């Protein structure tokens, strides 16, 4: 019990430190977009913060029927979990899928990957092998060319976590 307080304080300080550092480096490297972007994508934060930071509180529609999230119900090994997202989209120049985000709610770094697509590829299907720290929701968020956000999520049970850090 005695140890509980200093640790939570340390954690809090550490979180502030990380945020401050991220903010500072983000500002410093603003002139080099690729680096700044890379740092923006993967931060240690809660999933709510991550979604707010990336999408700025834009409303999301339920993507059921359009977005198909393919992920195992039970992941025995959290270190390698295949996630695949298929979007029913005409993929024409005026109506296509611009981004596909893959998010794991319980990961310390919730944003896993962002795929950027062009209409010429004909069909929007992307897959990534991800790590899952513990059981929780996995979301796929699709940003279409008109800015509409579609979200689907599914719970995955993880037997052995894969995010030791």
């Amino acid at each position, binding site marked *: 019990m005695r140890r509980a307080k200093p640790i939570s304080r340390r954690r809090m300080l550490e979180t502030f430190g990380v945020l401050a550092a991220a903010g500072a480096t983000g500002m410093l490297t603003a002139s080099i977009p690729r680096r700044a972007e890379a740092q923006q994508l993967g931060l240690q934060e809660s999933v709510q913060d991550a979604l707010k930071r990336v999408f700025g509180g834009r409303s999301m529609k339920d993507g059921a029927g359009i977005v198909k999230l393919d992920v195992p119900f039970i992941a025995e090994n959290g270190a390698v979990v295949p996630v695949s997202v298929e979007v029913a989209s005409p993929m024409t120049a005026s109506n296509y899928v611009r981004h596909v985000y893959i998010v794991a709610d319980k990961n310390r*770094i919730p944003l896993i990957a962002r795929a950027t697509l062009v209409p010429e590829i004909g069909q929007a299907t992307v897959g*990534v092998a991800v790590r899952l720290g513990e059981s929780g929701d996995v979301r796929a968020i699709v940003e279409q060319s008109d800015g509409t956000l579609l979200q689907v999520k599914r719970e995955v049970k993880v037997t052995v976590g894969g995010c030791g850090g």
Partner: protein
Amino acid sequence: MPDIGKARVRVPSSIKPGDVIHVRVLVIHPMERIERDKQDKIIEKNYNYINKVVVTYLGKTVVTFDTTQSVSENPTFTFTLRVTDPGQIKVTFLDTARGRYEGTADITFS
């Protein structure tokens, strides 16, 4: 690891012009996780992980992945692509240690 950066790009064996094909990419990379000390404090260092994957076909960028440390070790990526002309699919991986790795596959029509 001597194999780091070794990439394999797999495409279907028989392709016709206009087909939408599934491409599977595997790259050997440690994708280092954040390490913590006994006090659960993050050890500050430059973790080496892939943060960008760029796919080009016929010299044009078609798919880009921005990735974080939540992507697994030796990651695989899959995507679809409509093939119109014979040519090369080139996948470039960039990591946080300024590494740059490439994998290619040729599209040929039989």
